[in-house]
């Protein structure tokens, strides 16, 4: 009986085996992909031969998974995360309070995803099945683990395993909470310009075309958030009541988020009057029943 050398289990649960392209060593698909989250290269755990592809299935259902792409994206994400968290720590020492307030604006990548800023992050994420990064066609995401898919890939996979109607399930965490992914403020041509060629340049080198783009993107978002918050702070400072610090903080965070969403995470002072928007929104925070449309 086949046994996966990573988890020491056979295939009793119907776990799929994948085989590394060069050395033909076999592992559970989940195990080897889990290992690549930890490993520093794409070498085989048994013989240390490097393989860039993993073959899954046989015959006409065979799929070749591009490991390199996922691996580079992992690095890109780690880099981005290290950058954002690293910046925060520096602030922390200088001005603790300020940092606490600002925590909501520019947190880690996962917080950004949570905050509706998924739009830009999508560019560095690939389809969980085919590994393709053509973000324009990626249209489903898993609410539980954040994995992203092509609907066609999910349907295709379901047909392959013979459960035509069970396609609406995340292959990473088995959740059924797959939601439609909207591209938000990013226009279609902008998205498709981030094709795989950008990542290929990226290989091995941290500072390159792509990560510079990522950095610029973060700077842009950070700048937009900062500018909007200035308006909110001004509105709060001018509010006729003296506010306790906690309230100030909560309202600041809440209103700022509302405004980011309202203006698509961009700072557009020519289109919106942020001062009056902030004032109305702050007012609405104190009088929730007094309906203000923002």
């Amino acid at each position, binding site marked *: 009986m086949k046994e996966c050398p*990573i988890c020491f289990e056979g295939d009793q649960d119907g776990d799929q085996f994948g085989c590394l392209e060069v050395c033909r060593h076999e592992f559970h698909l989940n195990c080897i992909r889990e290992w690549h989250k930890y490993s520093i290269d794409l070498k085989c755990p*048994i013989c240390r031969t490097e393989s860039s592809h993993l073959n899954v299935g046989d015959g006409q259902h065979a799929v070749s998974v591009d490991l390199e792409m996922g691996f580079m994206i992992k690095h890109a994400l780690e880099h981005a995360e290290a950058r954002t968290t690293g910046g925060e720590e520096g602030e922390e020492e200088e001005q603790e309070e300020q940092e606490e307030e600002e925590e909501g604006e520019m947190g880690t990548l996962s*917080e950004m995803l949570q905050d509706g800023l998924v739009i830009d992050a999508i560019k560095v994420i690939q389809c969980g099945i085919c590994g393709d990064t053509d973000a324009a066609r990626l249209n489903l995401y898993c609410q539980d683990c954040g994995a992203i898919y092509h609907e066609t890939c999910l349907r295709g996979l379901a047909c392959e395993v013979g459960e035509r109607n069970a396609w609406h399930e995340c292959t990473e965490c088995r959740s059924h909470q797959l939601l439609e992914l909207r591209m938000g403020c990013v226009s279609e041509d902008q998205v498709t310009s981030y094709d795989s060629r950008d990542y290929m340049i990226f290989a091995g080198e941290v500072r390159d075309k792509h990560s510079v783009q990522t950095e610029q993107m973060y700077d842009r978002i950070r700048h937009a958030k900062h500018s909007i918050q200035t308006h909110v702070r001004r509105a709060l400072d001018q509010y006729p009541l003296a506010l306790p610090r906690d309230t100030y903080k909560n309202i600041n965070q809440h209103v700022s988020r509302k405004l980011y969403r309202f203006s698509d995470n961009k700072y557009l002072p020519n289109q919106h009057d942020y001062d009056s928007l902030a004032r109305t929104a702050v007012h609405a925070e104190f009088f929730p029943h007094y309906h203000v449309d923002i």
Partner: protein
Amino acid sequence: MPTALKKQKPYILSISDTCMSRITKEYRLIRKTLASDDPTVNPYRGIIDLLNPIDETDLSKWEATIRGPEHTPYEHYQFRMLIDVPNSYPMAPPKIMFERDAILHCNVKSATGEVCLDILKLQDWTPVWDILHCVHAVWRLLREPVCESPLDVDMGNIIRCGDTRAYHGIVKYFLAERERNNQN
């Protein structure tokens, strides 16, 4: 939009499960291997005397006793090691420590028992190795010290000079002293 995207990465939970099932399997395998008299099944006879979880209900803390390899100054002595299995095992390597002040070796920090062995480092570890392999690797380290990456620089220098007699002498003296202290 995706306010429900959870902060916590889901695989942290699942890896714990994998860790548990894998370590249970390993435990069963280790018991079977070490109990066997057949040298093809159990090549560790006379090498690993004991390899057990300290407490049967907690498989993350293990202890091991190895016998000093023949033709080395460690011969005839036993060395106890403590093994810590992290939550992310087998993706991350187990941590192996000797007991404090129990051994003198160029790749061991005697005061803490810390072992410097490449395969126990994150960058060289692979998940196909198991605890038994690791313990065996530490035993082999006693036989073949690596003076290129010493934790005990003095001992490393003695070996690098090629003065094996001095090395053996110091180790033997240290171990005899250890034995005397234990008896008192």
